[in-house]
């Protein structure tokens, strides 16, 4: 692992991606982005990140499917996931439970919008 933590940010909305990147760029992180679940899986395959920041409602492959895929094997078991979404946490967890019969195993759940300072605090807590 390099000196700078590697963070993969996944969101289908370019404005949101830019907003998050603008905030995270101020920190010593190495950043990569993906625009949907499929791109996310490809990026994960190329390099395992120190943190995955994941939107849920995305075209092609949604965030719940990404979580299900990542949590079904051992390969990405150690990758912390921060969900960053507009979806209410209750509804989101319920949906995941309904679809998989399992509790949603993510390390943080952040609802948009989030203040920049708050986002940095929570990201720092997960990558250190």
């Amino acid at each position, binding site marked *: 692992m390099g000196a700078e933590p590697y963070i993969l940010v996944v969101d289908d*909305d370019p*404005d*949101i991606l830019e*907003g998050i990147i*603008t*905030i995270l760029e*101020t920190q010593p992180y190495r950043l990569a982005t993906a625009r949907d679940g499929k791109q996310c899986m490809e990026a994960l395959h190329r390099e395992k990140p120190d943190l995955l920041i994941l939107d849920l*409602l995305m075209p092609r492959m949604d965030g719940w499917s990404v979580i299900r895929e990542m949590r079904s094997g051992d390969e990405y078991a150690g990758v912390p996931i921060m969900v960053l*979404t*507009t*979806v*209410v946490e*209750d*509804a*989101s967890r*319920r*949906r995941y439970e*309904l679809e998989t*019969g399992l509790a949603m195993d993510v390390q943080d759940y952040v609802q*948009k*919008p*989030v*203040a*920049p*300072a708050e986002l940095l605090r929570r990201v720092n807590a997960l990558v250190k």
Partner: protein
Amino acid sequence: MSGTNGPSAPMLEEMAEQAELSRRLRQYIFLRWIAAGAIPAGILASQGIFAIRFPAAPVLGLALALALLNAAFFFWSRREQPPGLPPGRRVGRQKAFAYAQIVTDLVALTVLLHFTGGVENPFFILYLVHAGVATLLLDGRDAIWVAVLAVTLFAGLAAGEFSGRLPHVHLEGFSSGALHGDGAYVAAVLIAVSGTLLLLSVVAAGIAGEGRRCRREQAAVRARELAEARERLEELARMRTYFLDLASHDLKTPLAVGINYVQTILDGFVGDISPKQRRWLERTLARLEELLQLINDFLDVSLLDAQRIVQEMEPTSLPQIAWQAIDDVAVRAKEKGVAVENHVPADLPAVIGSPKRLRRLLVNLLDNGIKFTPPGGTVSLAAEAEAEHIRVDVADTGVGIPSGHQPHLFEDYFRARLRQFVPGAGLGLATARNIVKAHGGRIQVESPYCPEHCGSKFSCYLPKEAALPFPQDSERQPRAERA
């Protein structure tokens, strides 16, 4: 499919059968009161009107014994069934109870006949009534056994008197007194009674069995329909959740981007801004956040899931929640010029609840009060422990609620006091009601409530955590009033 399962077909059928049996057993016990009363009346009539002589004392004794037994049956039937007993076991217990009563009656009838002329007394026909009752209360085979028992008892009585092993009680003034020893007569009566009894019970058991089968089939159909309806509801609930996820996403994403960008600029991530730009951006942010709150209110009403709330429940300190809620509304109260008073006693017992939902409940009720109270007025929050509940009151000195509006107040999207435009979607009270309901409590409104015919008082009744002392928050000093 996960979730709660309703009663299965056999269970529904057993529940229906149990209710039916209970009803018939009550009728049976009622009929026995009549029978116990009819015996003394019969003695009076036969001896007084028809001048038929027989020893009345043992017959009266029998009537008394029957009444006492019936009292026992009566109290047993009203006894609570042990909770948690499956309906099948309940039906089994009831059938055993019915069996015991029928056997008691058959023995009582045989004793009665013995003291009133034996086979000479035409009331032996009553055996048929008991066989009939048995087919109504018991399964076919058990009912046939009852008929066999009746035949055995009657045959035993006739044979005993015929052979002289049992003393014969003569009905003086009714018969010659020799019939019990007339072999042909005794045989004819026995054959007629036993033949009729057995035939009746077989036929009736067949009919009753058919009825029971019918009921069973109906119950199975009902259970299937219920299961289908449940499945449809679950599917609808799932679709609703998916739809709301999408709606929430579409409504909130543009706002989230806007808020995020403004906040990022304000926090200096994209360079310096002038004081005037900062002020304007701060105002922009406030308005965007207001819109976000409005959308959240809509989603709150739609997404409130009682099951989820139950999972969040824990012993919760209301005094602490009260302070948090008052903090939450403080800015709005100050802007409006309405004072908010806290009269929640610090030593209030805990309630079982979801802390974040209860906070939302109090915020909604306080906001509602602030919204409808003119400047200079007061909204007060109070709570009191009652026997089984904690009562939480939010009272205001506002305009009050027209009585015609009160029944609709907690309905979704009902805006009661429309005389002047009031901002907000009017979902606060519907959400409050949903939260209280999910806690197993109730909410009511009294308006006008104060002597000057003003204001409204909302009272929520929340279930109390039984005698659980809650750690006091010693940091907080009681404050009497905040604006």
